[in-house]
Structure formats: C-alpha cells, structure tokens
C-alpha cells in the first residue's frame, strides 16, 4: 500500500464541521429524559420507552429520575394545584440546556378538567418546547415529539433560552407580580434577591 493511498483514505474519513454544531449533534442524540408521569399519559410514555417502540434508537433510553442528571422533562398527565410547585422546583433543578415536552391534553391545556384544582396548561408557568395532543397520545406521537426536540437541539434552540436575560432593566420577571416560592428570581448569574436590586 503506497503512502499516497493512505493519505487519500485519511482525507475520506475526516468530516469538517463547526464545534457548536458537533456539540448540538451530540446533545440531540443523547437526550436524557426526566419522566414526570402523573396520570394515564405516563402509561403510554412507559410503553414508548419499552422494547416495542424503544426510544434507545434515538439515544434517549437513559431515564434519569434525578432532574440534575437530565435535560428533557416529559410532563405526562394532569398537574394539580399542589403539584405545580413541585414541577417548577424540578424544572429549576435541571441544568441548561434543557427541553420540555408537554404530553397529552391535560398537561397542555387542562383537558376536560376545568376545575379549581387543575392547572390549565403547564406552559403558563414553565417553558414548553413541544406539545403532544391526544388523550392519551400514542407512542408514535411521543416518538414524533422526541424527534422534534432532537431537531430543536440540533439547531441549538430551546424554549428555556428565551427566558433569561443579562439586563435587569429588561427582565419582565422584575414586575411586582413576579415571585418564586423563595422570593427570588433567576438570572444567568444565579439567584438574586429582588430587594437587594432595588426592585419593586
């Protein structure tokens, strides 16, 4: 084998790309879901993870029941008044970049349960990347949503990115109506006490 042929083969094996694109490609193909299953949609979600539908084909078979080790929150089921602070706490604990799937009618809009105890769509309180309609959705619909999240991840987009700012004067979360359970709000540099910033 001549040296010239070796060099030609080596050139064929090299792919040139941007570093960000490569990182996004890696992120998109290793999404680690945090399953938040609270109702019947969770049954379909579990079916999607099992061998027949098999989300490991998309690199997201590693279910992490710790929000600190996951980057995809799957909310499947109705979220009640008492559960919403828990869900927000979990969302806050997940490291960036992170994505959220709102699975089924109840998580997306409250579904048929328009009563005092049920949140009418989790997107009122946490950013949602992909919605899945259905009551409950089929695993095929879940896989479609997973691939939609992968597409967003490959482009480096996440709804949660649109929710932070460096400039406190531009931060709508400084409005008097805004508060977190601890009385703090989030900035890219971490939690800041509104009182220390002279906020209203």
């Amino acid at each position, binding site marked *: 084998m001549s040296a010239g042929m070796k060099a030609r083969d080596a050139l064929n094996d090299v792919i040139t790309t941007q570093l960000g694109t490569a990182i996004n490609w890696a992120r998109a193909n290793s999404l680690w879901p945090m399953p938040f299953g609270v109702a019947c949609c969770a049954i379909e979600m579990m079916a999607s993870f099992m061998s027949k539908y098999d989300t490991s084909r998309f690199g997201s078979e590693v279910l992490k029941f710790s929000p600190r080790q996951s980057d995809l929150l799957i909310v499947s089921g109705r979220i009640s*008044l*008492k559960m*919403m*602070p828990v869900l*927000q706490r979990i969302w806050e604990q997940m490291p960036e970049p992170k994505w959220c799937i709102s699975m089924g009618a109840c998580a997306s809009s409250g579904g048929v349960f*328009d*009563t*005092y*105890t*049920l*949140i*009418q769509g989790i997107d*009122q*309180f*946490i*950013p949602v990347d992909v919605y899945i309609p259905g009551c409950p959705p089929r695993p095929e619909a879940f896989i479609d949503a997973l691939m939609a999240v992968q597409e967003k991840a490959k482009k480096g987009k996440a709804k*949660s*990115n*649109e*929710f*932070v*700012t*460096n*400039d406190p004067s*531009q*931060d*709508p*979360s400084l409005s008097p109506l*805004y*508060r*977190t*359970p601890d009385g703090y*709000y*989030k900035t*890219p540099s971490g939690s800041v006490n509104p009182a220390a910033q002279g906020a209203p």
Partner: protein
Amino acid sequence: MSTPTPITYQKSNLLSLAAKVESAFGDKLLGKEEKSQYIQFSVRADDAKALIRFLKEDSDLKFTYFIDLCGVDYLKYPQPSPHPIAERFAVLTTLLSPKLGVKVQVRAFVPALEPRIATLADVFEGANWTEREAWDLYGIEFMGHPDLRRILMPDDYEGHPLRKDYPLRGRGERSSFPVYHAIPASQSPEG
C-alpha cells in the same frame, strides 16, 4: 386453619337492629330510612357520637368495622326533598357489623353557622384521616381531633372547595404561581 365464615346480608337482622336502636334512642332520632342493604339513622350532631359508640359497643350489635366517613353539603338540594333535611351540612358514618352481617349509616346534621361535631378518632382509628378530609373539603370542624390539618388541598389553601357555594373554577388559585416570562430571543444572552 379454618376458613372464615363469609359475611352475608341478613334482612331479619336489619329489622331487629332498627327496633333496638329505636328503643334506646327513640326520642333523639330525626329519621330512619331503610336503604337497599343498610339502614340510615338521622340524628343531630350532639347525639351522633353516643349513637355510634352504642352501635359499636353493644354486645348484640357489635358494629366494629368502620367503613367510611364523609361530609355532605345539602345547599341547593332539590326541595321539597323526599327525606327531611334538618341542617345544611351532614356527616355520614358507615359501619359494618361482622356479627349481624348488616351495614348501618349514621347521618349527623351539622349546623351551617358553626359546623362542629365531636370527633370519632378515639372510637375508630380510621376516622382520623376521613375526618381530616371532611374538614379540608367541607370545613366541618371535628372537636377533639388529635391532628386536624388539611389532607388533600395545599396547606396554604383558603376555603373549602366541595361546599356547593364554592365556584367550580376556583377563585384564581390556579394562576397564583410564579411565571417564567418569555422575552424576545434577540435580548437573550446567547443571541
């Protein structure tokens, strides 16, 4: 080991039970109604605990199995009602006697202005959480309860949502959470 005898419904026992309770509590009973497989006695809140204790401890009755306790709000109940309604609220206690093979229900009417009734937690252990549920959802206070806290709704919830005058869609509690506001992507630090 011998197989335990199954508890079977005995209509004759239901009738003898009714006669026995009427002879002991005749002047305090507001009503007596035979249902399909059980009998319901209506009393005022002050008499309920004595009646339930009697049902449990009488050697012929032995209603030792506590099935359920729940609250009722008779506001907007169809009138004229086929059954006498003495007050707005009631507490229904259902008991089973393994000895007689019959069930009994005690309907204790609780006044609307001061919804209070004596607790059953010292008679039946199982009444502890069911009474907390009735307190949570109907606001019926159980006097002497060891731990009367909300059990279903959040601790800071205001009001008792299963009361018939509570709005179905709530009073705005559903929107009282912090919101992660969206801002244009052009203002975000990552561009």
